[in-house]
């Protein structure tokens, strides 16, 4: 913590005024500095995480991105717990990526994905709060001339216990800010927590109720122009020719800009004008090698992986071949799932202004401030210190905004129109057809049962596309994408009681770009494994809950959440006529989850999901109400994928263009979701993603109970659920 004194404050407060100041004081126009704030703030910065104002208002700095998951509030709770401040006076502000860079990443990792926002920063943000509390307490002790040990802090007040004298944090902040940041910073015992573990209301809800929150798409800057973009409809295709004159003749159109071989944009006064002109402009594409690719071909290609000799191994235990040879019953099933766009409600967008003096500023909704910073600098050919990044809250992320393609593009346009802020907004169709899709996979599962119905062997062969191969090939391990095994690798897999086990993956990469989609490969793997476990239970003649319990004996935490979900849902107890249950469990992103779904299927085959009961053990639960909100929301996202959402490939391109063809769950379809947060303590699990994995398999298993139909390919809308 000693490097804190070396921070480049001047640079920080340029940003704090523009971004953080805006967050703290109510959004100003981003980029519009607030005169005078910098000085005030510098003097009251107690350590690097906390700024305390004269009225005790406490600004907590946040390095991660808020996209609806409540991380701003959760991280502030962690800091406030140790700071012993008045929670009602806590505000938050973003740390600017260039400031983090200039200060040797003093605020740590800014990437907000993998449900890591809280769990990987718990120690240093809590220490930041604790250090500030120690400095404030020390400042009070010095003012009174008493030993610091006689002073205690609570609720933004330091009390001298023997005399009962008090001093407010707002009064102490300037003196505290001048003290050395302590090196030894002990943290509170969890049993003493007052703010962590409370289902507190989010600190950033009010601005989401009256239209006042400025998303990046809402940024207004003097002289700003708007851009609409077209990328090669076929992935890998190239621009061949276009008729710029046609677009330029239209009202409000200022520029037609080629970005690179695959991308062209129309820039106009208004965005609708830009988009209309883009649509009217004749563009000829060289569609390249994949112009004829379609979903059927891709499915056939992926299928070749199911029996391929070559596969990367995740788990290998005992001898599955021998187990199958000696089995009383051998069960085999093939599953599959589709490509899926993230479809954040706020389409991809970024605003950039390049000034002729060689400076660049961007306004961006990003899950990774540092990646956006680097992408902008690279696109401009500038060093990082010449690029200023204004992070704005995201209108949804779900993994999509960890990529910086739209950042690069906005800079590519702005570089060609110096001095003018350029707001690039992707149309919904562009967003739908140029995503980083949830990868397509198939899975063959083979299981062996002995005469007593015990599982003696299991082979899970996954075939399909690798995210790492597409995005980060350097992170492959001996050619293996270890992420492909999420939930079914040795660390996460629950069914450790199976004596002979093989889990492997045959990579089958297509020309469709893939990426991290909320829950990532847990989504597909949990469907495959948890439905197949039900298939094995059926073959063994056992109850799905009892069958799982028998396989989870070595995994007490997996078992515990399963039992909570079963108990809360009343597993085994009578249900209304026609209603049936399904159960499943999954461990991922550091948290244990289980769910029980209750469904009915009408004579006409119409599915109704009545209720899903979910149990989640994230170790420590920072904010149980936000955990419930994330569980509810993740189920809507996961059930959309199960039921109706699908991206298909025709003539090399994504066939769906908008929400009229890419269906997603609406209010009517959402079941009642009941969340039971059961933190067992001792670890910090993620929350944004883990629960999503248990929604779909619980429903599929319930559908089987209701209809006797085992649905193995998604989405469900292609299946007839009428009883055979």
């Amino acid at each position, binding site marked *: 913590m000693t490097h804190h004194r070396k921070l480049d404050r001047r640079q920080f407060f340029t940003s704090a005024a523009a971004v953080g100041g805006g967050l703290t004081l109510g959004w100003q126009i981003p980029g519009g500095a607030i005169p005078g704030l910098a000085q005030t703030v510098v003097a009251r910065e107690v350590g690097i995480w906390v700024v305390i104002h004269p009225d005790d208002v406490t600004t907590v700095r946040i390095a991660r991105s808020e996209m*609806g998951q409540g991380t701003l509030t959760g991280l502030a709770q962690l800091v406030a717990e140790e700071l012993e401040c008045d929670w009602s006076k806590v505000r938050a502000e973003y740390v600017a990526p260039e400031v983090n860079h200039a200060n040797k990443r003093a605020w740590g990792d800014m990437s907000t994905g993998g449900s890591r926002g809280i769990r990987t920063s718990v120690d240093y943000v809590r220490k930041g709060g604790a250090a500030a509390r120690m400095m404030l307490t020390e400042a009070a002790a010095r003012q009174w001339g008493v030993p610091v040990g006689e002073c205690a802090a609570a609720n933004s007040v330091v009390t001298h216990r023997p005399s009962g004298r008090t001093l407010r944090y707002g009064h102490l902040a300037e003196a505290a800010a001048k003290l050395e940041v302590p090196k030894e910073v002990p943290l509170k015992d969890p049993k003493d927590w007052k703010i962590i573990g409370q289902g507190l209301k989010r600190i950033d809800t009010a601005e989401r109720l009256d239209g006042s929150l400025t998303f990046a798409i809402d940024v207004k800057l003097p002289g700003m122009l708007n851009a609409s973009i077209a990328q090669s409809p076929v992935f890998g295709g190239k621009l061949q020719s276009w008729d710029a004159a046609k677009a330029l003749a239209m009202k409000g159109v200022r520029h037609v800009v080629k970005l690179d071989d695959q991308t062209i944009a129309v820039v106009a006064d208004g965005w609708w004008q830009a988009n209309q002109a883009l649509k009217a402009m004749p563009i000829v594409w060289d569609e390249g090698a994949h112009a004829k690719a379609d979903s059927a071909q891709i499915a056939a290609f992926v299928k070749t992986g199911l029996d391929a000799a070559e596969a990367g191994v995740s788990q290998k235990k005992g001898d599955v071949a021998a187990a199958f040879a000696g089995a009383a019953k051998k069960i085999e099933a093939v599953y599959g799932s589709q490509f899926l766009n993230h479809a954040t409600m706020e389409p991809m967008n970024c605003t950039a202004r390049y000034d002729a003096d060689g400076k660049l500023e961007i306004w961006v909704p990003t899950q990774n401030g540092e990646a956006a910073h680097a992408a902008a600098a690279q696109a401009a050919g500038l060093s990082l210190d010449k690029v200023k990044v204004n992070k704005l809250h995201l209108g949804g992320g779900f993994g999509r905004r960890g990529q910086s393609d739209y950042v690069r593009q906005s800079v590519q346009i702005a570089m060609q129109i110096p001095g003018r802020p350029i707001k690039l907004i992707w149309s919904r169709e562009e967003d739908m057809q140029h995503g980083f899709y949830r990868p397509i996979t198939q899975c063959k599962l083979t299981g062996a049962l002995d005469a007593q119905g015990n599982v003696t062997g299991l082979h899970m062969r996954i075939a399909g596309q690798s995210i790492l191969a597409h995005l980060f090939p350097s992170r492959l391990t001996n050619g293996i994408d270890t992420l492909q095994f999420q939930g079914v690798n040795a660390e996460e897999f629950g069914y450790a009681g199976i004596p002979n086990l093989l889990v492997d993956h045959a990579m089958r990469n297509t020309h469709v770009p893939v990426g991290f989609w909320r829950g990532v490969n847990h989504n597909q793997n949990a469907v495959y494994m948890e439905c197949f476990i039900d298939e094995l239970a059926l073959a063994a003649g056992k109850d799905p809950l009892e069958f799982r319990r028998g396989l989870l004996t070595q995994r007490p935490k997996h078992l515990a959440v399963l039992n909570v979900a079963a108990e809360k849902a009343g597993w085994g107890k009578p249900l209304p006529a026609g209603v049936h249950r399904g159960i499943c469990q999954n461990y991922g992103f550091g948290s244990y989850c289980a769910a029980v779904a209750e469904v009915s299927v009408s004579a006409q085959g119409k599915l109704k999901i009545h209720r899903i009961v979910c149990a989640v053990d994230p170790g420590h639960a920072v904010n149980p109400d936000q955990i419930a909100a994330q569980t509810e929301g993740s189920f809507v996202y996961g059930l959309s994928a199960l039921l109706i959402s699908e991206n298909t490939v025709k003539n090399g391109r994504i066939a769906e263009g908008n929400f009229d063809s890419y269906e997603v769950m609406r209010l009517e379809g959402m079941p009642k979701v009941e969340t039971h947060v059961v933190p067992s303590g001792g670890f910090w699990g993620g929350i944004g993603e883990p629960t999503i994995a248990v929604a779909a398999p619980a429903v599929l298993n319930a559908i089987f109970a209701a209809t006797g139909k085992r649905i193995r390919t998604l989405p469900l809308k292609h299946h007839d659920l009428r009883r055979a």
Partner: protein
Amino acid sequence: MIKLSVNGKTHQVDVDPETPLLWVIREQIGLTGTKYGCGVAACGSCTVHVDGVAQRSCSIPVGSVGQAKITTIEGLSRDASHPVQKAWLAHQVPQCGYCQSGQIMAAAALLKEKPKPTDADIDAAMTNICRCGTYQRVRAAIHTAAGNKA
């Protein structure tokens, strides 16, 4: 020049009459609480009130609005005191918040038409997309705003 009444104020805007009302509200009038989500009236992020009725402003040419009174999220109340906004806060409905202007405007219009909506009424009226999946809380908050028992 097109004359437009938004949140009780009259605006003169110099735009192509075919321009969707959404973009006029956002770019000419400068009220950005109304959002672009799809441009084809499929998602509801752009929902505003046109003479008190919830409409998707992305698919209304501004030239067709005429004398109609437009209300956007910014004009729903002066201080977020509309019963729907208060219920939204109490139930902690928003996650990312992007669709919530549209959700709130749709809910407010529903309650105006049906002060005591049933679940079926809510199902039918609330067709706006929320990718964060806040629907359970949207439903609960509408019941609260209506004074319905939970």
